[in-house]
């Protein structure tokens, strides 16, 4: 029997390799990680300045503001998720590799979420407190963000994959992706609203969980199909 010329990595090895590569790359460009977070904080700071400092008004609109800001910050950070790989050709290698592309995509986006989504979740309670949200509503806010930001990343990545080959993709990206974010925004913001008025939000969280499972299953397939089109 001939030995195979080289060792073909298993699925878990692939996931681990992609995760390590992404995190190393991100670590080498630490400064860029901060930008979407700063955007998140500044956008939220602008609202009290525009609307006025009355705590009652702010408290009323806080869940919506935080969620809209999280949504825009995710979109901003996603914009470059495939860009450098597309430019230096490594994206083509991933598309051509014998390993399933949806899996590689999922690993890439997991790394992206850990670096861009998790910090948002950790920052959100502080900003919520500044917007006079009741303390009881802060854990539900974090819970909705924990379930919701992966959905934002996955749906957004479909749009990024479709526009990665275009020169001025950013403005187009928001037109493509933002309408698809609407269900998530509605359920998440109203979950936090409900929590702020002291009611149970189990039902809301279940729906958010369902959305997460749904996009987690289907979005990697759509992203892979889009990447195959963009790289040809």
């Amino acid at each position, binding site marked *: 029997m001939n030995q195979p010329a080289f060792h073909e990595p298993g699925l878990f090895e692939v996931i681990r390799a992609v995760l390590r590569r992404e995190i190393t790359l991100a670590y080498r460009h630490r400064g860029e990680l901060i930008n979407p977070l700063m955007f998140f904080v500044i956008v939220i700071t602008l609202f009290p300045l525009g609307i006025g400092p009355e705590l009652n008004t702010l408290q009323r609109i806080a869940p919506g503001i935080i969620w809209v800001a999280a949504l825009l910050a995710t979109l901003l950070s996603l914009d470059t998720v495939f860009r450098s790989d597309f430019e230096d050709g490594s994206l083509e290698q991933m598309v051509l590799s014998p390993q399933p592309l949806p899996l590689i995509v999922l690993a890439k986006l997991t790394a992206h979420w850990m670096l861009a989504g998790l910090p948002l979740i950790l920052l959100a309670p502080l900003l919520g407190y500044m917007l006079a949200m009741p303390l009881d509503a802060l854990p539900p806010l974090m819970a909705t963000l924990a379930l919701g930001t992966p959905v934002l990343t996955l*749906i957004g990545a*479909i*749009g990024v994959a*479709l*526009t990665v*080959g*275009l020169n*001025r*993709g950013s403005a*187009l990206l928001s*037109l*493509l992706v*933002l*309408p*698809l974010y*609407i*269900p998530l925004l*509605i*359920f998440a913001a*109203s979950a936090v609203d409900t929590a702020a008025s002291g009611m149970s939000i189990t039902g809301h969280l279940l729906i958010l969980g369902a*959305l997460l499972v749904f996009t987690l299953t*289907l979005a990697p397939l*759509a992203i892979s*199909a*889009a990447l195959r*089109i*963009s790289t*040809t």
Partner: protein
Amino acid sequence: MWKFIHKFASPKYFYNISGKILPPLGWVTLALFIVGLVGALFLSPPDYQQGESVRILYIHVPAAMLSMSCYVAMAITAAIGLIWRIKLADIVAWAIAPIGMTMTIIALITGSVWGKPMWGTYWVWDARLTSELILLFLYLGFIALQTAIEDTRSAARASAILALVGLVNIPIIKYSVNWWNTLHQPATISKMGKPSIDASMLWPLLIMIAAYMCYFAWITLKRSRCELIYRERNSSWVKKMVKEAS
């Protein structure tokens, strides 16, 4: 069966057969519009509650119906083009998109014109209005993506994926917007409810719906033909046809 579909999907065959269908279809559309509009604007009685402004609905309802079904038709044809690589399906999806967008805009404008006397304002964040607006954004996204990509082949395939993602999302959006509306906004506006529609108002409405559908079929064929002949301009049958005509 498959042979028939392949034959129909061939550009030349489609061009010839649609050329034969178009004129009679155009006349039928025109006739339906005349009958429907006369019925809607003159013959049907004014509503006892809404008065004369009920006549806007004869324009509004068919447009709103088509705005949704155009998206489904567009997504399905785009998917056919993506999966079986049928060029003709790409072209038809391309042709439907602006029509669906126009229908959505007509539905939104006539809806708000109707809303002014009924609800006292041009715009309310009603569930149906909001989901119609979101539908408009989905159309705009589809068209924007298609115009942004230079190569027609990959433009069609990329926008097909977008249309499919949108198609999966439409029920979720619709459901969530309904839910958002009932949650955030108590029923300040009493809607029409569901009055059983009288026969004198039903027939103009049905004819108008039929007229819109015929118009949709007609303009889709027309637009597809124009785009088809443009994209096939280097093929031999188009060159031959042009030479014979000139």
